[in-house]
């Protein structure tokens, strides 16, 4: 039992940190530009596929640097030549633009790399077990993922709190118009923030690619969960996104490792009901409903705290 708790906590924190790598970019972009980037998970996917391709050509370590830079450049171009143009048509048009972009990116990835998963492997230098805990070998690569996420989290925190650009970004989170009035080149800051945000998502893609499945539908699977994180944490709240990322990471990881069901708790259902829909509910295990847990959480949050855990702004 203790083993399960320790391992699940480790995995949950890891998954949560990965989610936060993406959610942080999404939140900052939303706070500054006012647009929820529907294609954010697509940049995570681009990162994974670029990482796969570059690690084939040059190895994993160059890929870890080059893939996010490329994805960030694409992101900056999207902001400069796409979003800025639709901005005058309102937020709905911006959201729709990123929606269309997500659709198109998925198609392009499918055309280039096909529909089936690609063979993105853990680099040999990290392919060993870091430590053994309660007879479970914990892979070193997962520790590496955790380390990278924590490093980036720390770097992000320092940049936001200690540097000039961080101060401007922070100011723009709460008072976007005032920052413009003070004479900062808001357009360039927007482009930069969009580029960095998408690059962070791509980093998550590169490091998650070998551990999870690198496939053309990975953006479609992760995207909605990312939005749940942002809404549950509170739209536009960076600490909220952090709390929600860890919460959803832990909830999903613990749910997957649990096998309980109503029939396990209260005994099997009487055979009279065996063929009805009641038996579905009775026999489903917690592990099976793990994929819908984030959405259940979303609905609960909406009912009891519509502005999100740490949200203050009501959009």
């Amino acid at each position: 039992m203790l083993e399960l708790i320790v391992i699940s906590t480790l995995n949950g924190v890891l998954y949560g940190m990965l989610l936060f790598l993406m959610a942080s970019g999404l939140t900052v972009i939303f706070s500054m530009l006012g647009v929820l980037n529907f294609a954010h998970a697509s940049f995570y996917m681009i990162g994974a596929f670029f990482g796969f391709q570059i690690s084939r050509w040059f190895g994993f370590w160059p890929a870890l640097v080059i893939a996010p830079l490329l994805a960030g450049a694409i992101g900056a171009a999207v902001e400069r030549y796409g979003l800025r143009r639709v901005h005058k048509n309102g937020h709905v048009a911006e959201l729709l633009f990123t929606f269309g972009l997500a659709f198109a990116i998925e198609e392009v990835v499918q055309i280039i790399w096909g529909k089936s998963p690609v063979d993105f492997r853990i680099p040999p230098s990290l392919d060993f077990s870091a430590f053994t805990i309660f007879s479970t070998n914990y892979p070193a690569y997962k520790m590496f993922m955790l380390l990278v996420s924590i490093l980036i989290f720390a770097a992000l925190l320092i940049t936001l709190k200690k540097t000039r650009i961080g101060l401007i970004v922070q100011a723009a989170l709460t008072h976007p118009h005032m920052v413009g009035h003070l004479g900062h080149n808001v357009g360039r800051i927007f482009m930069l923030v969009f580029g960095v945000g998408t690059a962070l998502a791509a980093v998550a893609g590169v490091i998650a690619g070998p551990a999870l499945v690198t496939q053309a539908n990975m953006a479609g699977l992760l995207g909605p969960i990312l939005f749940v994180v942002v809404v549950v944490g509170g739209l536009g709240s960076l600490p909220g996104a952090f709390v929600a990322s860890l919460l959803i990471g832990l909830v999903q990881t613990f749910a997957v490792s649990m096998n309980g069901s109503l029939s396990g708790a209260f005994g099997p259902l009487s055979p009279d009901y065996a063929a009805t829909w009641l038996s579905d509910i009775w026999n489903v295990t917690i592990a099976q409903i793990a994929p819908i847990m984030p959405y259940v959480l979303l609905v609960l949050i909406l009912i009891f705290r519509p502005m999100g855990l740490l949200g203050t702004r009501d959009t």
Partner: protein
Amino acid sequence: MTETTQSTAPPYPAAAEKLKFYGLWVGAAIALLLLPKLFSSGGSLTTFSLIGISIIFALSYNILLGQTGMLSFGHAVYYGLGGFLVIHAINIIGTNKLPIPLPLVPLIGGLTGLLFAVLLGWVSTQRSGTAFAMISLGVAELIASSALILRTFFGGEAGISANRTKVFRLFDWSFGPQIQIYYLVAAWTLLAVIAMYALTRTPLGRMCNAVRDNPERVQFVGYDPHVVRYLAFCFSGFFAGIAGALAAINFEIANSAYLGAVQSGTVLFAAYIGGIGFFIGPIVGAIFVTFLSLGLSDLTQVWQLYFGLIFIAVVLFAPGGITGLLMMHRPLLKAGTFGRVLPSYLITFVPTLAMLAGLILATEIIVYYAVHGGDDSHIKAFGIPFDAANRYLWALSAILLVGGYWVARKTWTMVGHAWDEATGGAREKGAIA
């Protein structure tokens, strides 16, 4: 602002106006009746049925997006649940020999959509804008994932099927042949379109527009925007349920794809490409998108990419959609200055077309190398066979793309100038306020 504000009600429409208005609906009904006489093949009847279903669905979506300003990413939930319930209803009616004829069955789907909209709507519509969009996405994912868990009811991956001919028969209509299904769909489409048009004319429909444009002011006037949004959401769910029911009757099967994100995306594409600013927009969009998805899939294997690119192009360059583009010209036609923009359109048409041709050629060549690398390089796209390995074709596509863009850019500025001139002329004649 004009100096005198109109304080009285608009004048009662003249008899000629009324005749024109009702004539339009009667004309539509006659056109729907005669359509199968002109195109009687099974394939075209199926296409017409699909278009009818898609029109109802797109219009129901526009109650949210166009009329009330709520961008939903999960409208397929109400469509899909309507479809599933109807399949179950047909099975129950068939086995218990209940006296319910098939033409009334879509109502069951509508009521299902309404029921779920009533249940889920109150939480979802608390906020509009981006928050609503995210919530609708989350709720849609919740329902779609639950559908795969509740296997007995939703039939898992395979879905559930029914036999529509086993239902109680009225006037000896079996609803086996496609022509009878066509008339069923056509009748429901006409009814639903009239009902949804009437809805936009009611005080509720007007309040929806007000909530879309300025929710704060609506609150000052004494209405609760949340309630107005909720009511619009319920109506929208009802009509989406009818569309789903007709789809289920048409295919005699309902599976998890009915509820999925692709279905939600398609209806959004249809409504937006058609134009959300006008009532007729989603109808145009539904027809266009259905033809596009049926036609393009025969012509090229990467049709979904083109589909996405068309959508992005509409969002970027024509936020009013197809209808919006056409309606922009109405004041010019009225003022008779349309002739001033027409020549510039014809001039810009050539380089723009060349640019698009270059883009398509380049895409098809790249797709060939990405997908079938080693196969025979003589491929066929849009019905034209060509050799993807031919270096001259590569050069041609590059020249068309770059040269076309370079020339087209100059002609676009020309169109802009001609447009300004024509609208200026129209303004002088008073066709534009």
